[in-house]
């Protein structure tokens, strides 16, 4: 019998351990799809809502209402004058048109929807009265594939998933082994400590392909989200990102003794990245003063690189800074973890 390699055995057993946990499959494969579905439909591109406005009953109210209805941006309802003011006050309508005598707009100019309604109403009434616009302006709607919210969201969810599965998977496995004294038993053998930690990271590779393929395949089928750049480059980015977060997971789990402790630490590390690293909206929206900090976070780097390749079709050169960032995180976490790791 050829001598089996400890690194290989550690990796294979780690993969088996992971597969045999039913809930892991949910968090890795099902959860990101549910999230993509929910957000994809919530923010799907659709014709903008009409703004509700009211016309107070009066001599010319029917004719005015008819003129207003020609605007595609307005939804018009007739009100009794008192009820109309009440509807405006509680925000049911954005503008009330009173037609006793001269036409009068009643609205709150601090409400953006009211200002919008006013402009639309003015246009509609003037045009109905025969205004001719001196300049013709063409319009082109930009809801192209690649610029929709879902196109922005999917790379972010992919990055988020690579972070969560990497860190939770590694963290729970290590802390469980420590709390059950299995780590202590392992260091009593000639096993090399480095092999144990490397296996934690290596086992990630086994799921990586499936994890990425499932989410991207789903996004492609359901939302028609494509990859503009090279698939190979995308694979490299996913791999480096997964390794960086597995390394970070090993580091976070390097001393914790209980599942509660490691959960707290994980949240402490991951929550800022959930919010700041541009998963759901671009990290560019944060002030310039914090940008260097945000750019240094591994999830920001991963999300940026994924977006550049998927949306812009960027080349290796363009994502090199992000790849370097992720590699540094991986090496640094692993090196520190190996030093501070608690085996007993």
């Amino acid at each position: 019998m050829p001598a089996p390699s400890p690194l290989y055995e550690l990796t294979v057993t780690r993969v088996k351990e992971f597969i045999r946990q039913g809930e892991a499959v949910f968090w890795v494969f099902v959860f990101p799809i549910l999230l993509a579905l929910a957000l994809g439909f919530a923010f799907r591109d659709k014709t903008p809502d009409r703004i509700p406005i009211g016309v107070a009953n009066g001599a010319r109210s029917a004719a005015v209402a008819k003129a207003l209805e020609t605007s595609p941006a307005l939804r018009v309802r007739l009100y009794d004058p008192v009820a109309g003011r009440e509807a405006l006050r509680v925000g049911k309508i954005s503008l009330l048109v009173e037609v006793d005598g001269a036409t009068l707009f009643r609205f709150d100019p601090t409400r953006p929807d009211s200002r919008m309604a006013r402009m639309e109403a003015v246009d509609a009434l003037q045009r109905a009265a025969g205004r001719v616009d001196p300049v013709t302006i063409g319009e082109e709607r930009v809801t192209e594939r690649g610029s929709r919210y879902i196109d922005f969201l999917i790379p972010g969810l992919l990055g988020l998933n690579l972070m969560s599965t990497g860190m939770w998977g590694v963290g729970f496995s290590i802390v469980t082994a420590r709390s059950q004294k299995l780590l202590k038993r392992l260091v009593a053998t000639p096993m090399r400590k480095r092999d144990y930690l490397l296996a934690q990271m290596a086992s990630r590779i086994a799921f990586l392909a499936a994890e990425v393929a499932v989410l991207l395949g789903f996004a492609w089928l359901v939302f028609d989200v494509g990859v503009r750049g090279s698939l190979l480059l995308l694979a490299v980015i996913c791999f480096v990102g997964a390794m960086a977060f597995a390394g970070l997971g090993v580091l976070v789990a390097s001393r914790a003794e209980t599942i509660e402790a490691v959960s707290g630490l994980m949240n402490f590390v991951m929550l800022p990245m959930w919010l700041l690293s541009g998963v759901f909206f671009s990290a560019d929206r944060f002030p310039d003063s914090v940008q260097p900090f945000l750019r240094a976070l591994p999830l920001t780097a991963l999300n940026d690189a994924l977006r550049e390749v998927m949306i812009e079709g960027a080349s290796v050169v363009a994502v090199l800074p992000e790849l370097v960032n992720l590699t540094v995180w991986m090496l640094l976490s692993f090196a520190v973890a190996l030093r501070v790791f608690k085996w007993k």
Partner: protein
Amino acid sequence: MLPAPAPAILCRGLRKRYPDVVAVDGLDLEVRRGECFGLLGPNGAGKTTTIEILEGLTNADEGDVAILGERWSGNTQALKERIGISLQETRFNDKLTVAETIRLFRSFYRTGRDHDDVLRRLSLDEKANARVGKLSGGQRQRLAVACALVGDPEILFLDEPTTGLDPQSRLQLWEVVTKFRKEGGTVLLTTHYMDEAERLCDRVAVIDRGRVIRLGTPAELIGALEASTVVELAADPMPEAARLLALPGVQGCHARGPNLALHVESLPRTVPALLAELEGSGATLLHLSTHHATLEDVFVSLTGRELRDT
């Protein structure tokens, strides 16, 4: 003349302090090659701390350890190849099967035994494909010993290998230990079962409060008891120990479960006096039995406590 080989285990002046207790307090041991050596002692005596220092898992505050003639520092990797360990409490990965666990441990050693062979030896071959999480307590203990054996060690360290096992499983484990010794291996074990120590161990050390308080073969320790017969009794009301100690031929008196155990030199001298004493005090005799002293009696008379907490 060739120099004698270094002892399997040698330690001198071991000391280990924890914040609120001195767990090991100046402990010396020498275990010869091929010997089965038992560490006995009540809960908290320092057996586990001692064995883990010897295994290189815990650092002693003071003292020297040599395993197979080598110190731990500088030889860690080489020594780990040569010893096998079963800790007092380890839970292996519940999600793996028995065979996968053994294969994993086997992969850590450069040379070792065939894992099927080890499984058979511990009667785990039928459970080879069962998940560790589904094993009974006894099967888990056997798995722990299997993991200790799979690297083909020269010394086996077993910390309470049979605690919680049914009689059948204990017998099986005793056979494994016996077979390992026949092949030339050395064993250091801790146990709370005196019959186990008498059966398996060539020599035992009784440890209390981190020190060796007696050392010898089981027979020597029993023989060293001045009174080699034990009378156990229960009565209502229970007589006072001081009065019983005053009876002719009584060397010691200890509580033992619900009973009192008297160490006596000769039954014909003591028993009539004992019965007269009870009758005189108006007590009713509920239980009376006698036996030859065992290691358990040695232990109780040495530590004044019972070994098991039950």
